[in-house]
């Protein structure tokens, strides 16, 4: 019964924030903190007490629209548990980092923030395809408002409403393609079994021809590829990030992008194992292209938030490669990479926000020499930058290393090119450091340094990154059973499709 609470708390908390605004804005902020804290506590409790070794740790299911075989079905396993924990953690930092930045319509802002988080948690829990799609779309509307109403109109950009609309149209349109694919899957299942159902577990082994499977898979892939984003479909991301408020960027990069990776792991691979195996090389090359393209574009940016946005594209490329490699090591690497990227990019966006609060610009050309003007901010920034470039000992390194290790055996060429992306990531990370913090300061005045709230926020994220880098075993244990099941399925599909190559590798 704990699962509906995970959903109910953020949605109800959001409404509460909205209505409490009339009693004072500090109250709103603390209610928001309390809301997310409850979610975090629930997640931690599930983590400590739950058993993640089996198929599902917790399940909840009630009939919803019996006519169409739709149930309100929620299930939780290690994978969803970790991502919900990440959502709660980043949600807390998102509230914290908007403490001073957001001054208008605070109640409505927190309503939207809470509902976005609620929608994301719903995506991570839903095991009914209709419900999954519902949450997939529901989280977009509040996110749209976050960008459109509290975003920045960056000079030279097209404005925040443009960015928000672009984000919404890209993700919603691709979502509709997925809806058609979901319906096609359900009707194919209905034709072969006579049962109309949207249940994930029932649809898992739907018999269908290879051609049908491929087309339906592609429908899902389009939606996930836009959200991840995969390179030709990525153009909404830099725009959205550069205009979004800090909290919006944190949630967008930290958790919204992860819903796509989650969708690949939870739905695409298990529902269409054969088509996925067929599609794997193509998807991986898309991923590799994204790694290189994102890195090269990041290098060329002068807007610091756009730069971080392009690094996200590059890092998400690793996730795509890892998912389609399908080996146990690579899949575990994907988990670590998702968590580490969520935290490190969240930290970087918070730093961008803090710079913006002090300098009122995102433009790297107007920065420079900042190391001399702060005492605490630059070293912390250095920490997140080297985390993002994959310094051993921090989470990102581990994720990328595991992904490359797990991919090398089956796709050495992909691995080689992807590994070169690591060099590029060092280049863009160091250039970011160089241009923002070193060089000749434009002004000698000291700037307001980080206060305790900001240090606490960033310190927490730093602690998590170090934990992920040094002792990831508890995390890996949590996700092991889910990833094991996925890998087994992937391997058996591969054996069916490529018996020759499997046999060749066996000895």
């Amino acid at each position: 019964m704990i699962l509906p609470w995970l959903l109910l708390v953020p949605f109800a908390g959001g409404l509460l924030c909205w209505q409490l605004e009339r009693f004072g804005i500090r109250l709103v902020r603390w209610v928001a903190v309390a809301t997310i804290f409850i979610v975090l506590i629930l997640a931690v409790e599930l983590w400590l007490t739950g058993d993640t070794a089996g198929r599902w740790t917790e399940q909840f299911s009630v009939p919803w629209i019996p006519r169409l075989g739709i149930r309100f079905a929620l299930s939780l396993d290690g994978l969803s548990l970790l991502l919900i924990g990440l959502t709660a953690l980043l949600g807390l930092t998102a509230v914290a980092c908007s403490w001073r930045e957001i001054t208008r319509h605070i109640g409505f802002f927190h309503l939207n923030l809470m509902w976005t988080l609620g929608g994301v948690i719903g995506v991570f829990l839903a095991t009914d395809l209709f419900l999954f799609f519902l949450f997939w779309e529901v989280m977009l509307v509040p996110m749209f408002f976050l960008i459109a109403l509290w975003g920045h109109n960056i000079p030279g950009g097209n404005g925040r409403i443009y960015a928000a609309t672009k984000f919404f149209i890209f993700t919603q349109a691709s979502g509709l393609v997925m809806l058609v694919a979901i319906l096609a899957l359900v009707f194919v299942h209905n034709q072969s079994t006579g049962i109309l159902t949207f249940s994930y577990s029932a649809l898992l082994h739907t018999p269908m021809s290879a051609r049908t499977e491929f087309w339906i898979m592609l429908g899902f892939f389009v939606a996930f590829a836009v959200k991840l984003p995969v390179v030709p479909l990525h153009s909404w991301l830099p725009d959205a990030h550069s205009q979004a408020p800090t909290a919006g960027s944190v949630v967008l990069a930290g958790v919204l992008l992860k819903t796509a990776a989650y969708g690949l792991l939870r739905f695409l691979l298990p529902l269409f194992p054969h088509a996925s195996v067929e599609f794997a090389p193509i998807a991986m090359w898309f991923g590799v292209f994204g790694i290189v393209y994102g890195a090269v574009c990041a290098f060329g940016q002068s807007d610091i938030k756009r730069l971080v946005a392009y690094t996200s594209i590059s890092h998400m490329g690793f996730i795509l490669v890892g998912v389609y490699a399908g080996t146990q090591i690579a899949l575990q690497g994907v988990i670590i990479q998702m968590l580490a990227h969520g935290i490190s990019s969240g930290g970087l966006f918070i730093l961008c926000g803090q710079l913006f609060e002090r300098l009122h610009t995102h433009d790297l050309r107007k920065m420079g020499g900042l190391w001399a003007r702060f005492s605490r901010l630059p070293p912390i920034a250095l920490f997140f930058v080297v985390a993002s470039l994959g310094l051993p000992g921090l989470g990102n390194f581990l994720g990328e290393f595991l992904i490359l290790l797990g991919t090398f055996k089956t796709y050495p060429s992909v691995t080689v090119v992807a590994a070169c992306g690591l060099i590029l990531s060092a280049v863009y990370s160091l250039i970011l450091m160089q241009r923002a913090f070193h060089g000749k300061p434009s002004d000698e005045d000291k700037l307001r340094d980080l206060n305790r709230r900001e240090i606490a926020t960033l310190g927490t994220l730093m602690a998590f990154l170090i934990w992920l880098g040094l002792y990831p075993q508890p995390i890996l244990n949590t996700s092991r059973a889910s990833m094991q099941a996925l890998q087994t399925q992937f391997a058996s599909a591969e054996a069916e499709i490529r018996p020759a190559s499997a046999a060749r590798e066996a000895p």
Partner: protein
Amino acid sequence: MTLQQLLALSPLLILSITILVVMLAIAIKRHHGWVATISTAGLSLALLPLVVYYCLPDSFALRLPQTVTPLLRIENYACFYTALILIAALATTTLSHGYMEGYRGNREELYLLLLLSTVGGLVLVASRHFASFFIGLELLSVPMYGMAAYLVKERRSLEAGIKYLVLSAVASAFIIFGMALIYSQTGTLVFSDIGASVANGERIVMILGGAMLLIGIGFKLSLAPFHLWAPDVYEGAPAPVTSYLATASKVAVFALLLRYFVEAHAYRYSVLVDALSVLAILSILIGNVLALRQEDLKRLLAYSSIAHFGYLLVALIASGALATEAVGIYLLTYVVTTLAAFGVITLMSSPHKDHDAEILFDYRGLFWKHPYLAAILTVALLSLAGIPLSAGFIGKFYVLGAGVDKGLWTLLAAVVLGSAVGLYYYLRAMVQLYLRPRWVMPFSAPRNWATNAGGGMLIVLMLVMLVLGVYPEPFITLVRAAGLSGQ
């Protein structure tokens, strides 16, 4: 005529009596409030037998289906659409009351016209014969000329009325010519007999007749490429009339179209189905694309309605029991949503001013002034855009489902593309509500808008929109009970 038949006809009869009462009431003493009350009471009374029939099927004496004369057939299908039209008329009446309060001319005849038009709609959804089809259609349309041009001193209202009159008359001419062609081949005017005797007629003339009918109906439903009147009439007509035009009249015509296609076996002419597909794709694309740059909310909703009837045609083309269900659900969600959207426009406007509150800029910052009113419009726009948790999503879901079931991939691609384009203008309209308000708002709803009849009705519509989106099962059961026989 038996008691059963009288009972089956009771909504129609009650409404006709109401018209007489309203006419007498106006003749005795002009009183706006009284006339509005009588009309509301009459419409509610007409709705009552349907509610009782649905809720207590065993204890109520009525047994359906009933064929009343060769013209009308009352079954669950007709009852469902009757109820939908009555609800739309009821909503329009309550909205008109607040809106017309500010009008200085004669206000009472609007209700008379509205009731007359509603009777036409009721005839239309129950008709199984070309004669009742045509009578119903004219009874539906002719009062609407008067309604559109009701604010006679306004140039734009008058223009809307005349434009609608001319084009509607042309459409009726097409329809009657189509009927004549079909009659010449089959020798019957009853839909089902046309379906049965179709084999002996000459194919090409039958197709031509069907095409003529489609053109006429296309005009009435404002399907592209027969959509040119819609934006002008929507813009010029008074806001409550527009809400009636967009909902009740289109629902009635669409319900008839579906019945005709099923009963007269029009699906067997693949040329006609192909023509419908072309109309659907054109409507979806043209409606959505032309709405993109609209600054006028009423025109925007006109184009959006063109696109929505394109989506509905996809369900019609899919054919079969699931498609009938999809049409029912979609029309239900469409009516509720459109009424809510126009309801907000009506509350914001008044015939005092020389035009309604229709420019998007008029709505800038509404949320910070009237949060609940803006929330209703937001939900309505999201629902029109088909975002989950609102009614419109369930409708779109059904349409996509019906299309996937029959493998209509081209049409589905058009629906997806159209919806994606549509998002742009719905979001554009929606975000206006939340921007920083203007210093002086030229239009504003009265402070106590929620306490008058129209405001209360809007809140109910808002709740229905959300319930439909969150828990549609009871509505699905209702629509499923209203299937057409012969499928």
